[in-house]
């Protein structure tokens, strides 16, 4: 026999190709944890500065007993107000596409690239927040890996500091995935009613949310950094108002960026196109202006454990 029409034959002679692109687009593995939900948002006020000073009101105090019926009065009490600063900085990411990329088509197109840029905002805020865990003045360091005892210690520290926890505003525990694994392992060895209610049966609180344990909302993020010569992961437990963030609205840039160049104006995120016609290149540049700060140091405690 001869002259059969085969795949192998046509692959070399023409008529068949080794592979074709599927229209289906798989998402590459990444951690999309967005921790904006565990912070207090302070609306950005444009008033001539890149820094917004936020006031902490003085705490009420108990009255002092009068020492005499007729004289003495009272000495002045310090009002005890405080403040913290939110200084915004520009964060940006850019992808550059050639014209050949555009005309050749395929599952990854300009729209997919712009969407990937938009999805990076939450990760950026999470990165900034987790970098602050090691600057908290209180810390619980696990003797080796993270255990239930360490999480209890952090909870006790917050309670002693007067950090309130309620159903509406529970403590948040943010830890590295390795710490999460160690915590779950430790939970398996516990006796008694220490149920970890996983996120699957709770109302979804966003990417990264793992569930609730002892009234604590548990989150995991691979943004939790390593510290102490990379020997420890740095997670944290904190109460509401421990950290605050702001994002400046980019609509203020409308006079700066030609309307035709704006690909996305999502309030806090601007994605604009930048065209280099000579070289046939189009850039998509995403920018946002954000700040994250410790609002009250005593409302947070770092949780360190072995990597």
């Amino acid at each position: 026999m001869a002259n059969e029409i085969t795949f192998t034959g046509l692959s070399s002679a023409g008529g068949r190709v080794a592979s074709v692109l599927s229209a289906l687009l798989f998402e590459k593995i990444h951690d999309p944890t967005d921790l904006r939900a565990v912070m207090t948002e302070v609306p950005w006020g444009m008033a001539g500065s890149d820094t917004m000073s936020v006031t902490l009101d003085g705490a009420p105090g108990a009255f002092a007993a009068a020492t005499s019926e007729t004289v003495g009065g009272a000495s002045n009490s310090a009002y005890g107000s405080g403040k913290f600063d939110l200084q915004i900085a520009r964060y940006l990411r850019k992808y550059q596409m050639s014209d050949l990329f555009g005309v050749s088509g395929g599952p990854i197109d300009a729209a997919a690239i712009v969407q990937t840029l938009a999805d990076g905002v939450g990760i950026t805020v999470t990165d900034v927040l987790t970098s602050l865990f090691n600057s908290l003045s209180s810390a619980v360091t696990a003797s080796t890996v993270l255990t239930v005892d360490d999480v209890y210690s952090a909870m006790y520290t917050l309670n002693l500091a007067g950090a309130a926890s309620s159903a509406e505003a529970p403590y948040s525990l943010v830890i590295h995935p390795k710490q999460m694994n160690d915590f779950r392992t430790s939970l398996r060895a516990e006796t008694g009613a220490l149920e970890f209610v996983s996120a699957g049966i709770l109302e979804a609180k966003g990417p990264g949310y793992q569930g609730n344990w002892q009234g604590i909302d548990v989150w995991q993020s691979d943004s939790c950094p390593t510290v102490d010569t990379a020997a420890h992961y740095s997670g944290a437990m904190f109460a509401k108002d421990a950290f605050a963030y702001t994002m400046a609205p980019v609509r203020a840039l409308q006079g700066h960026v030609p309307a035709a160049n704006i690909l996305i104006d999502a309030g806090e995120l601007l994605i604009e196109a930048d065209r280099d016609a000579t070289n046939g290149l189009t850039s998509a540049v995403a920018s946002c202006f954000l700040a994250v700060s410790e609002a009250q140091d005593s409302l947070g405690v770092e949780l360190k454990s072995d990597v």
Partner: protein
Amino acid sequence: MSQTIHLTQPKRDVQTVETRSGLPVHKQRPQARFVYVVFPKSWEYHDDHGFIPVMRRLVAKPGANGVDNRGNLNRPIASAIQKGGAYIDPKDTRLGPFMDYVQYYDTENGGRWYVDFCSKATVLASGEIIWNTRESGDEFARFRKHVADAGIVPAMLPEVFEWIIIREEQKAQQLMHRSDSSPHLLAKYDKQCERIDRMRKTWEDMKGTKAKAAGKASSPRRKKADNIIEG
């Protein structure tokens, strides 16, 4: 007149030979520049070095805790000092061999990955970074001991020692209570008790050294209340 030449060593074509240098950043995010502060209660017990300060890191990430877009750390340092922290200036000459403790590795994309002076990394062919934490951890502990010995941070207060001991004792008590249902915890309890003994001995030794150094300095007298009962 032209001569015969022998070519023995071809030059590498950078287009075809990929040379790797620096830390890969496609899987991990590089760490920003930082400095250390020590807060009054930031102390811990180390088996080899006794009580040493726990370093707290202020990271120069723009937008974080008042760091500006140039990475200026003045504001977070001022805030940490206000909270009672002692700032460890990397240029402090008292640091001796540990001066400029913040160092960096280049990254593959031309950036910088800031690390402690003693950090050592191995980059696998897959792009994974493995940090040598055991060796660098010992060096880092020596650095922390030096920071305390050189007086760069205030000495640990006796009240802080008591606070640490109470926490350790509570840990021991918890182990004891739980050993009823989990007998294997008794061994952990014994170890914890030994640790507490070592901590007390180390503290007593430290106090003895200090007392010798102070000579016959008298302790400040307390003021007496006039009449506690009747005011």
